[in-house]
């Protein structure tokens, strides 16, 4: 057993690292757990290694910003548990981890869940065919080992990450056959209603324009107003089809990279029984917190994108705020000190968050993604289509958890991570009720599959304890 620590941080991305550094500065004992071998999370994945190998600069200034966080974190004196997977968190602050061989218990007086975002599942026809991956997946390959797409790889979807990745590939000498942009033109009219945010967030917008200019300059085909995308192939991807203005086009493809924005990774907070709310602007569920990240489970705090999408810079601010909240909750600082220290963090938060409303409106997911056509696979693990979900509804199924019994949807190895958001969307559509009313899958332990041997190794802890 390790601890008890004042604060156990789960997740070594911007929110987790910033929280650990801030908590250590306030004199708290801190442990940080991450499943990767090094700090950075997904956004700054492998940044120390990339820097050591001279590859970081090519990945952009935003990526290199992560170096300041990893350096501060390494110097903070937090106890590090890298290459450890969390498989259970108890509401009282006990965290169970495995290193792949044996389990151990890490105790925290408070636990900060900072597990970040996942890409929104892009349930389109053919998305299970080998050769179809997410943009995020391809970007992880680029960040960690410098691998780039070869010819015949298409990118489809919308959002800042997609354009960022495409521009990054072009700059690094990779190839992009073309971009199928699904952002709706109608969304552009929202610009006016978010004018203030757009002005304050001009740096982000200028960056976006920069990506587009770079892609134009490189002569990358950029198809706009794409209404639908389909992957074509049987045992391997052969092509991609898309629809613009009702007209279908197609091309040969060796790879198809999908991206339709990111959503909070709520698996852990759901399992913990924290209350969640539907965020209508971001079309996803997120845990209910106060401004310091406290949830309605006393020992559990939340920071970063797993609490609602804000991006890396906002995540770091929220990590610092959560550390202040934890320090106050433990009586290490009083609330006036907490609020004094929070003031500059809040100002920085506001600067980086100003553009969010505009981004949410510009890149809102299209309706067919939230509730796809009958023949589209929703649950990849169990091979359940949207049609079978609708059929279950017609037989009387009224919610996601009942849906498991009807269809096995959400009962495969991913435990509903990939189908959960779409199941809620299809049910909301079929039942004619808001997603908030439909609700989500109940998440049960373990959070990650583990062997009986890993579980049995806990008996030694119990005896020693």
């Amino acid at each position, binding site marked *: 057993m390790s601890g008890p620590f004042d604060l156990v941080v789960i997740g070594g991305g911007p929110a987790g690292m910033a929280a650990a550094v801030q908590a250590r500065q306030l004199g708290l004992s801190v442990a940080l757990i991450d499943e990767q071998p090094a700090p950075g999370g*997904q956004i700054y994945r492998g940044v120390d290694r990339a820097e050591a190998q001279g590859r970081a600069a090519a990945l952009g200034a935003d990526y290199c910003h992560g170096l300041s966080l990893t350096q501060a974190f390494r110097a903070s004196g937090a106890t590090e548990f890298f290459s450890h997977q969390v498989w259970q968190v108890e509401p009282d602050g006990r965290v169970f981890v495995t290193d792949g061989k044996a389990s151990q218990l890490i105790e925290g007086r408070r636990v900060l869940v900072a597990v970040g975002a996942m890409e929104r599942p892009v349930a389109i026809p053919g998305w299970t065919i080998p050769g*179809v*991956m*997410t943009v*995020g997946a391809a970007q992880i*390959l680029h960040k960690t080992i410098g691998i780039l797409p070869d010819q015949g790889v298409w990118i489809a979807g919308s959002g800042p990450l997609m354009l960022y990745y495409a521009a990054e590939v072009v700059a690094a000498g990779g190839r992009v056959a073309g971009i199928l942009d699904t952002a709706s033109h109608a969304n552009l009219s929202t610009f006016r209603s978010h004018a203030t945010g757009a002005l304050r967030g001009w740096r982000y917008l200028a960056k976006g324009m920069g990506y587009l200019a770079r892609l134009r300059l490189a002569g990358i085909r950029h198809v706009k107003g794409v209404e639908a995308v389909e992957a074509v192939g049987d045992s391997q991807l052969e092509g991609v089809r898309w629809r613009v203005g009702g007209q279908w086009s197609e091309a040969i493809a060796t790879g198809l990279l999908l991206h339709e924005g990111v959503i909070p990774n709520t698996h852990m907070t759901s399992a913990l029984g924290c209350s969640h709310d539907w965020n209508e602007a971001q079309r996803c569920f997120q845990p209910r917190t106060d401004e310091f990240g406290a949830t309605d489970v006393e020992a559990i705090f939340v920071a970063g994108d797993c609490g609602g999408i804000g991006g890396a810079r906002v995540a770091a601010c929220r990590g610092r705020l959560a550390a202040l909240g934890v320090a106050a909750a433990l009586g290490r600082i009083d609330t006036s000190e907490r609020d004094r220290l929070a003031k500059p963090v809040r100002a920085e938060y506001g600067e980086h968050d100003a553009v969010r409303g505009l981004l949410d409106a510009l890149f809102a997911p299209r309706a067919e993604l939230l509730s796809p056509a009958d023949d589209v696979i929703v649950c990849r693990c169990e091979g359940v289509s949207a049609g079978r979900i609708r059929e279950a509804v017609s037989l009387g199924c009224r919610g996601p958890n009942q849906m498991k019994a009807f269809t096995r949807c959400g009962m495969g190895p991913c435990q509903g991570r990939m189908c959960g958001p779409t199941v809620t969307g299809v049910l909301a559509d079929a039942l004619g009720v808001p997603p908030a009313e439909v609700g989500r899958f109940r998440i049960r332990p373990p959070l990650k599959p583990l062997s009986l041997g890993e579980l049995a190794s806990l008996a030694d802890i119990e005896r020693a304890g």
Partner: protein
Amino acid sequence: MFQKLPETADAVLVHVEGRAIRVPAGATAAAAALIAGLVSTRTSPATNEPRAPYCMMGVCFECLLVIDDEPSQQGCMVTVRPGMRINQQHGARQP
């Protein structure tokens, strides 16, 4: 789908479906499978269709592989070690 990588000094020798290949240190088993040109990494026990890594960040479980004879390993979460044997997983894990 991906460009060939230049040989790096810290490359690690692994065996993908019995074929020896060198991959960069720090690569995951799923990345090694992609570098080796494996089209699919597993077949779905539910539908028997071929599947390949999709998210590369531990969410989708499509990259389940048999690694050093241990079935159902999340390939994208396992960093390569010298001599690692990486094999496709067909259907459910075998006892």
